[in-house]
Structures are given as C-alpha cells and as structure tokens.
C-alpha cells in the first residue's frame, strides 16, 4: 500500500483553480521531487496532501498510523520568542535528551542544543528543522523547498544528507524544488507540475520530455546535457535512475493547449 495517495485532487483559492485533477502516490523508501516554476502549485500540493488546505475535489489517502515528518518552506521564529534548539526539538511532542542529541548528530550539528534558533545560519536552521522532523521516526519526510536561501555547497550538502537519511531510516521523501540540477541527481522520481501533472518519471525520462522542456524554456542543449555532463561518472545514461533502478512510472505524454 502507498504511504500517501492522492486521487484526482483539485484545489481552488476562491474561484481560481490552483491544482486540477492531480493524482500521485508515494511508495515506501522512494525519493520523489515535485518540480515546477513559481506559481505552479507545488507548495499547494504538499499542503493539500498534509490536510492543511481543503480539497475542491478528489481524495487523499494515508496509510493507517502513518508517521510523517514535515519541514515547512519558511519558518521565521519571531525575534520576540526566545527558543533554544533543544526546546524547539520538543515541539509539539516532548522528546528525551538522548533522542534530541542523536537527531542533531544525524543532521551534522552535534552540540548545538543550547544555541538560540534565531542565531543559527540558514543551513543550520534547515538542518535543525530536519532533525525535528526525524524525531517522530517518520515513514515519510515531506520537505517544501528545503534549500531555499542556501548557497550551492549548502544545497548540495543538504540533498546529500536527505539521501543518507533515506538510506539509514528507509523513510520515503517527498520534496518540492524549483532548482533543477541537484534535484535531478537526488531523486528516484520527478513530478513536473504546472497546475496539473505535466509529466513524471525518472529524472532522465522527465528531463527528455517535451513538456518539461517547454515548461522550463530549455532548448536542445538544456538541463539534460548539463545533467549528464555533470553526472556521467555515477549514472547510467540509459534511463536507469541514480540508484540503479529502472523507472517505475514512465512519463506519460499529453497535449498542452
């Protein structure tokens, strides 16, 4: 059974349709990235899956008792609220010191328990958010543009961390991004979104899809060339994904009006 499955969901803000007839399912242990330009409904899709937004149509099913770790897109802690890293990890569920220490070590930030959240750098802050999400021992991690505001090395480091976490814990990962290259290397499956699902499949399949190229305005020398150029050393060029599996969900073509 899928961890989370959406069937034909639509979301409207007022009369404005933001998502139309989106269906997707996340299976145990896979890394799925939702890719799309600004305003394509990426965050809306995540928030609909989390049950934050009401659905205009369709259903979202969760596996019974699903443990879910969430890293929101933007969490600004008001300066007026004092908050140590340790205290933050105990929200909303209090956790044991040993677990908090282990989670911080897991994300590469040992010993920051007594630091103020407001005093952390952007990269450290994102890692603490991830540590907090890991404390529920999630079966699925949902991350909304987790590397926003990080520089290139910080971004690459964060995706490496996500991959390690998936390997250690077996948690599935569903994340949103609008940066192409790093995501391409770090995902099993990419869903290309623009109000509806344009195309989906393994990174290589999607980056070859005309819908994807149209959406990101790429010519024949687009992201794929760049992607393969950068990653030839570690990837098969034949549609086998980064983890040696063949794509489970080949891209489906359809016309764009």
């Amino acid at each position, binding site marked *: 059974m899928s961890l989370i499955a959406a069937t034909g969901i639509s979301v409207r803000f007022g009369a404005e349709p933001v998502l139309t007839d989106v269906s997707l399912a996340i299976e145990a242990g896979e890394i799925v990235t939702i890719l799309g330009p600004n305003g394509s409904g990426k965050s809306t899709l995540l*928030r609909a899956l*989390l*049950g*934050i937004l009401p659905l205009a149509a369709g259903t979202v099913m969760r596996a019974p008792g699903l443990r*879910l770790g*969430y890293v*929101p897109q933007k*969490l600004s*802690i*008001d300066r*007026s*609220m*004092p*908050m*140590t890293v340790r*205290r*933050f990890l*105990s*929200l*909303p*569920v*209090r956790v044991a010191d040993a677990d908090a220490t282990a989670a911080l070590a897991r994300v590469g930030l040992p010993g920051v328990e*007594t630091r*103020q959240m407001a005093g952390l750098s952007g990269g450290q802050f994102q890692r603490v958010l991830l540590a907090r999400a890991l404390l529920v021992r999630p079966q699925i991690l*949902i991350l909304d543009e987790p590397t926003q505001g990080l520089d290139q090395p910080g971004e690459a480091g964060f995706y490496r961390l996500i991959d390690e976490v998936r390997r250690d814990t077996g948690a599935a990962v569903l994340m949103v991004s609008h940066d192409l290259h790093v995501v391409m290397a770090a995902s099993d499956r990419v869903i290309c979104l623009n109000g509806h699902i344009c195309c989906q499949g393994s990174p290589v399949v999607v980056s070859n899809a005309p819908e994807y190229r149209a959406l990101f305005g790429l010519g024949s020398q687009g992201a794929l060339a760049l992607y393969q150029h950068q990653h030839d050393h570690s990837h098969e060029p034949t549609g086998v994904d980064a983890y040696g599996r063949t794509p489970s969900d080949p891209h489906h073509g359809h016309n764009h009006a």
Partner: protein
Amino acid sequence: MLDDFLVRAALAGVGLALATGPLGSFVVWRRMAYFGDATAHAAILGVALALALHLPIGVGTLVVALAMAGTVSTLAARGWAMDTTLGVLAHSALAFGLVAISYVPGVRADLSTYLFGDILAVSKADLGFIWGGALVVVASLVWRWQALLTATLNEDLAHASGLNPDRERLVLTLALALVVAVALKIVGALLIAAMLIIPAAAARGLARTPEAMALYAAGFGALACLVGLRLSLWQDTPAGPSIVSAAAVIFALVAVFGQMRRG
C-alpha cells in the same frame, strides 16, 4: 488577613500577574498587542451594559470582551486588513462605551474607576473573581502549552503534527477576554494591554526559552503591581497608571542591565 484592604490589593495584583505573564508572552509572540487593546476597550461597553441591566460588572465585561474578541478573530480569518479593522473596532468600542455609560444615572463620577482601575477598593468578592479567572487562564495555557507554542511558531507545522491552529487561537482569544474582565478593576480598561505587553517585553531580554519568558513576565508583572500599589497609596495616584509606570521602569532597568552585561 483579607480584611486588610492592602492585603487584598496586593493579592489582586499578584493574581492578575500570574495570568498576564504567560498570556502576555503569547500576545507579544503573536503580535496581538492591538488585539488586546480592542478587547480591553470593549470592556467599557460591557460596564455600561452591566450597569444598565443590573448585572455584575464582571459578567458584562466578560460577555462584551468575548464578543469583541470573536468579531476580530472572524474578520481576521476573512482577510481584513488587521491594523485598520482593529483601529476602527477598538476606538469605536471605547467611544460607544463612554457614551453609553453617560446614560446610566450616577455613574459619571465612577468612570475613572473603570478607565484607570482602583486596586485599593478590591473587595473579597472581587478577589475571588480575580483569582478564579486567573487560575482558569493559567490552567488553560498550561493544558494547551505545547500545542499553543507550536501553532504560534508556524501554523502549517502545527497542522502537520495533527493539531488545529484555529482551536489554539480560540483558546488564546477566550483567555484574553477573561483576563480583560479580571484586570478591569486593577489597571482599568485603558491600560490592560500595557499590563500584558510590558512585563513580557521586559522578560524577553533575560529569557532563553518560552517558559522562562512566561515566568519572568509573571514575576515582573507582580512586582509592578506591588510597586504601583505603594505609589497609588502613598501619592494618591490612579492605580492603573501607577502600576503600568512601575512596569515601564522595570522594563527600562532590565534593558539597561542587559546592555551592560553584553558589554
């Protein structure tokens, strides 16, 4: 012991501070200062209604404060521009309240009691109402503490953890209305919001966790009440302004002390 009006006044101040410390911290964290003002100013309208209908003052203020808090929450959820809405509602409520009170015979002279508080005139019944209200507020905040903090940090985060941010906001709204009803006798309608914000703002400089800030705020609030009470007794100054002045001096001292310690 309760027969001494000074003891009653001191206990009233400490009881109020117990509730305003933690609740005021949330008001500061969620930037609800103006919201507190609107609710407090509506209390004057509640006083007028209570006097006209021969109801206890506490009941009148509580009902109108709840209605105001509910109205503001509803408008906020519908996406009205918050500062304008609150500006309209807060001052209208105060103005209507003052006009309405002028129709109630024989109250004009007592008006300053409701605007500025009269801590020295706290009766045993008042004391019961104040402590009862304060304990209900503290108990609700303690009960919902983890959920309230999470929802204050980020509503999506709270949602994803299976909490309902709207419910947590409702808890704070109800607590605020109750504190307004409780505080009316002590600091008066005009300065209730100050009693929520100033001790919490002073506590911010010293605290490293939300819990510490709430406790420091309660302590500073209690201290401000006691100092203000002395001042009011000694110089025959109005109670509310005296207490808030004391709180402001505490805030300034903590700020200076904090600056010096940081070098």
